């Protein structure tokens, strides 16, 4: 069974995604082998749902996006694995955030990952997960030059053996 990639996308948006090929300069394969056993590995999560901690972190810059609709805030947030769902806020103008706020596990399944660690399926969960806001300037300049290297540094510091990314 193959997923219909456009099932929930408005028809007029489809040409913005379909048949556009690789991102310029990103045609070649990239591959980092996963060498350890899962039960001996530390796994990190990344969500692009615009999740941040409402009491201690700034929101993603939605006013900036309202002023410049082609732009999206390229910054990132550290989301501690032990943060409570009620600490979360969502800043993303392209999705309805009701379900996300009711159950952040649908975008950042830290609780389920913890359960798999307790069961011994996974060795460990990273202590600090990563949040970004997925709507970005098409050229991805800030993500490439600033955000991606910073996230890589963070994942190395966390000693993550692998990363699960979930777009919103």
């Amino acid at each position, binding site marked *: 069974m193959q*997923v219909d990639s456009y099932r*929930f996308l408005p028809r007029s948006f489809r040409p913005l995604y379909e048949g556009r090929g690789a991102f310029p300069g990103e045609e070649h*394969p990239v591959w980092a082998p*996963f060498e350890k056993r899962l039960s001996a590995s530390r796994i990190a999560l*990344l969500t692009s749902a615009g999740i941040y901690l409402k009491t201690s972190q700034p929101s993603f810059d939605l006013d900036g996006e309202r002023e410049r609709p082609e732009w999206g805030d390229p910054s990132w947030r550290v989301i501690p694995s032990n943060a409570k769902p009620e600490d979360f806020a969502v800043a993303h103008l392209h999705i309805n*955030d009701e379900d996300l706020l009711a159950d952040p596990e649908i*975008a950042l399944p830290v609780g389920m990952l913890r359960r798999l660690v307790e069961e011994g*399926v996974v060795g460990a969960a990273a202590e600090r997960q990563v949040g970004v806001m997925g709507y970005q300037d098409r050229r991805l300049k800030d993500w490439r030059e600033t955000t*991606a290297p910073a996230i890589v540094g963070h994942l190395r510091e966390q000693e993550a053996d692998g990363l699960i*990314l979930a777009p919103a």
Partner: protein
Amino acid sequence: MPVLARWIEAAGIPTVTVTMMPAVAEERRAPRIVGVEFPFGHAFGVAHDRSTQRHVLELALRVLAGASGFGTRVDLDVEWPVPLREAYRAWQPKEPSPIVKKMLEARANAARS
């Protein structure tokens, strides 16, 4: 997001992208892909449905740790439990995003002129 996965992978950290648009992730050359036929904002399934969330996470872990090579894609055979028309409306923001608003205005202006 698939491009971000590529940059992280290129730095030596294995990645898997869980996405509702796996065909697009393939075009953008993401290293490992798990496809889900779920509405946007719901990569791991229905709110509070721990069973589906677990399925998705376990599949993502299997593909992350066990994929044999670049471009591996595995789709999850789970149907969204809400009728399409309702689900289609439910995931969308209450007001159009700034870029959609701009596109709609441009279309309206073109129709007027």
